[in-house]
């Protein structure tokens, strides 16, 4: 009897990546780089760097992109690059509120519901079901109309609507993690509920929530842009990406840069956030 030959594929050199992995890695670097650059630029703009986004310059009306005005100027001679950076700050605030309020509160509520179970879980389930069923865009528009258009109001109301989404997902993940052996072991060692929450459950839940967090942040930025575009966001002359696109719409055929650059900023930012979200999803598998 002859033993069958078994041929094993030779392992590649240590650390070698396939073309797909290399492409993905480049994408992650570019996405993270873009978001870092945007954050620094927006912070610098808020700190006063660059041109005043509200200053009119009647000698530079509707100028196309140049070295003096990288993204060109609008019909009042305002610098579109500076206005876009201030718009990035507005979008960044909405994203931050979504992470802190929507993600933070939502995940905490969901994890507590999944751990405590019983009446708490039933109550959280009922509230999330009701909230998800509400027509969010109409309510956001109404609240902004009543409370007045400020980026804080818009950010708070958008992020409040993401709380049920996070709560529901975090609860489902917690139900699975809470039954895992290492959590039971911690309980048999005498760990308190707080310690189980902070050391055993939350560290396991958070990586699984990261892809959803990134997708929701992208959605919140788009929602802010859409609200501003529809006129429910920041009022002119305050800059936001959606408002810039809306203002440039009337002059799309003569001064396309008024719409093009803010739209590109939204597209690249959303793409970057989604690329990072996909990376987190892959990493958490």
């Amino acid at each position, binding site marked *: *009897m002859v033993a069958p030959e078994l041929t094993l594929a030779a392992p590649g050199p240590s650390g070698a990546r396939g073309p797909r992995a290399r492409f993905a890695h480049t994408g992650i670097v570019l996405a993270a780089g873009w978001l870092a650059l945007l954050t620094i630029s927006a912070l610098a703009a808020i700190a006063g760097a660059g041109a005043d986004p509200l200053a009119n310059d009647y000698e530079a009306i509707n100028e196309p992109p140049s070295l003096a005005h990288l993204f060109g100027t609008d019909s009042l001679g305002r610098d579109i690059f500076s206005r876009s950076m201030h718009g990035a700050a507005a979008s960044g605030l909405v994203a931050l509120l979504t992470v802190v309020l929507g993600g933070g509160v939502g995940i905490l509520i969901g994890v507590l519901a999944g*751990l405590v*179970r019983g009446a708490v879980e039933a109550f959280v389930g009922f509230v999330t079901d009701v909230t998800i069923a509400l027509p969010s865009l109409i309510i956001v528009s109404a609240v902004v109309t009543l409370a007045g258009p400020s980026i804080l109001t818009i950010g708070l109301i958008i992020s409040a609507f993401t709380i049920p989404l996070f709560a529901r997902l975090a609860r489902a993940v917690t*139900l699975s993690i*809470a*039954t*895992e*052996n*290492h959590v*039971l*072991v*911690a*309980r*048999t*060692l*005498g*760990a*308190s509920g707080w*310690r189980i929450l902070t*050391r*055993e459950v939350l*560290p*396991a839940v958070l990586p699984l929530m990261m892809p959803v967090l990134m997708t929701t942040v992208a959605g919140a930025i788009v929602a802010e842009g859409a609200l501003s575009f529809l006129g429910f966001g920041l009022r002119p002359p305050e800059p936001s990406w959606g408002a810039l696109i809306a203002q440039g719409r009337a002059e799309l055929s003569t001064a396309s840069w008024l719409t093009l650059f803010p739209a590109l900023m939204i597209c690249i930012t959303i793409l970057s956030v989604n690329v990072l979200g996909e990376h987190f999803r892959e990493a958490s598998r």
Partner: protein
Amino acid sequence: MTAFPATESTAPDLSAPILSVRELTTTIHTRGDARAVVENVSFDLVRGRSLAVVGESGAGKSMLIRSLLGVHAPGVDARVRGSARVMGVDMATADAFERRRVLRESIGMIHQDPLRSLNPTYRVGTQLTESRAFGNQRPSRRSLHRRAIEAMAAVGFRDPVREARLLPHELSGGQRQRIGIAAATLNEPALLIGDEPTTALDVTVQKRVLDLIDEMRERTGAALLLVTHDLAVAAERCDDLIVMRAGSVVEAGPTLQLLTAPEHPYTRALIDAIPRLDGPRTRRLCTPTEGNLS
């Protein structure tokens, strides 16, 4: 009239049971249904003795352990009657704070699946220090780390400083279970509970792990409550035996007596089910010429 001289009243009574279980009954409630999974179980376990709980899968062995610890899976509506006193504290009626104190100070538990018992995201050294960082008395991080390293050395790790930095998946099954033993014995508990601690291990590693548990017990004088479906392990390692079936104790007594002269048919069936090398073969092995090896 007192049972003991006055001079002995402050010394611990070594004959007093560390674990005393009386008519423990656990009922699992589901929607419109209630089922007793542990029924009227009573036994005592004193310092230095070892007691095995044996029975087939589903006999209620693990549920017995969970009931006497007061730790059930989340979402399980388990209602416990009777009493389970650990060092005098009734775990069935104690408040959560007192129960956690007893779990921290008096009980060490070795679990079945060494991989799943360890948190996959923390290094094993961290998990050992974490395991004793609960409660009000919090030793310094440095002293906890030193104790964790000592505990790892005590269970046979050759380079505990380096190995403490490894993640659970980087250890073998036997090493992981040794970490489990180190965690369980770090506080030198009076009661050591093993819930099928060697089921997931091969026979050679199983022997080393059981030897290690015996060594730790000899050093600390802890009592051992060993849950196993392996009658051979129970026979070799434990002084007393409880045989469980469908949540109830069908027979109990000293191991040697129970294995040599079993009274209950179920105990006899369990003993008869142990595979023997010198026993009759129930299945004829095929020879190479009969099979399809060519």
